[in-house]
């Protein structure tokens, strides 16, 4: 083996990852917010207007985006949407693609959590004269989040890893940056080690948030 490890390269190259790290965080947060908003509106709409056609449409949406590989969805947003008349930057198409995929899973989590809320809670709020907005905010929402939040956070951990696929549509986040630098520097081992450590650190931050949220949400039984 004629490969000399250049550990000092890691220290020298790390500052160049600063922008890439921010881009990963930005992409992750944007996609996460968009997907939660989408999933929440779908779950609430499906719950309020419990009609058959709407249920079918939502079911199809979730089946579709849980079944397609992320890469295919992202490539479609990046390559096919411009042909259909929708111009998106690579960051926008990655964000929308990731949000579409994530919202399908989050919708399923929220839908499942909604079934755990007894019908009497809705009836009681109506009997007490709560307007719908207030009922969702004060009565249903808190109970829903207690059930759904642990699963949503577990899923949020996997969402971070999915942002790496955005490198395939020319977003220079951590993975995209490493790929470029591999081409330029021919030091694949060190660069992949940097990418691994960066992802592991970011994942661990979300995992810690997950543990803290679980602890905070646990019902006190006294």
């Amino acid at each position, binding site marked *: *083996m004629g*490969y000399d490890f250049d550990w000092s390269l890691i220290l020298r190259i790390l500052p160049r990852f600063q922008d890439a790290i921010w881009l990963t965080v930005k992409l992750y947060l944007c996609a996460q917010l968009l997907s939660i908003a989408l999933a929440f509106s779908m779950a609430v709409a499906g719950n309020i207007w419990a009609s058959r056609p709407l249920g079918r449409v939502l079911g199809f949406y979730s089946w*579709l985006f849980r*079944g*397609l*590989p*992320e*890469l*295919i969805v992202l*490539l*479609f947003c990046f*390559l*096919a949407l411009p*042909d*259909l008349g929708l111009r998106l930057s690579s960051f926008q198409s990655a964000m929308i693609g990731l949000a579409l995929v994530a919202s399908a899973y989050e919708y399923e989590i929220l839908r499942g959590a909604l079934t755990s809320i007894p019908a009497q809670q809705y009836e009681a709020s109506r009997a007490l004269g709560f307007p719908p907005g207030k009922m969702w905010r004060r009565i249903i929402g808190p109970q829903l989040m207690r059930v759904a939040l642990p699963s949503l956070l577990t899923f949020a*951990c996997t969402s971070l*890893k*999915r942002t*790496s*696929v955005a*490198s*395939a549509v020319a977003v220079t986040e951590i*993975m995209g940056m*490493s*790929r470029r630098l*591999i081409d330029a520097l021919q030091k*694949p*081992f060190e660069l*992949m080690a940097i*990418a*691994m450590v960066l*992802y*592991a650190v970011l*994942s*661990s931050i979300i*995992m810690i948030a997950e543990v803290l949220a679980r602890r905070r949400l646990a019902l006190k039984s006294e």
Partner: protein
Amino acid sequence: MDFTVVWTAAPLIAKGIGMTVLLMACVGTLAPLLALPLALAREFGPAWAGRAVSAFTWAMRAVPTLVLLFFAYFGLPALGIYLSPTLSALGALIVSAMGYNVEFLTSGLRAVPAAQIETCRALGMGQGKMIRRIVLPQALPVAVPPLFSNLTLNLKGTSLAGLVAVPELTSIISGLISETYRPIELLLVAGAIYLCLNSVLIWLQARVEERLDVRWRAARAERRAAA
């Protein structure tokens, strides 16, 4: 829309589907088989083995599959290990899937009541026999549904192997896109193929779960006794 581009490239696409199915079949069988000894070592082995396995699953769950794929593709040759792109991608996909599979199998093993294990020890049953005859028959039905759900994720994961020069469906499709500039048709077809493959997996899952059901096994035992 004009799907003739798909028809003319059909043999190539078929080859890509073959590679995708092959990758998925290898990952689906090898990852759980390799994960089982790790899960057993974690539950029944020495403390250091448990810690090592926990560290392994944490790392594999924290690092994206794509990074592992690139590591196997670029990093292993740097270490003096030369594999074909397909083999190195397969290795990365298996190791990545194992991170989750070990967790599913561990939770299956933990679902076996502790009293049963204590009873085995009290009866003087050997460790190996206990695992084979008492623990696994009860642990596997618990672990199989999440393992199969993970397999549908693995199927989607194989699409990433295209980025490290494995000629599977997605890479064939993106090659065709840059040749023909017809992204809409080609991506719609690729999406439909993935959805079909997924449906096959989900159908298979229902069959396997049926077979692992206690009632089905009781019926089979009765049939055998009668024959």
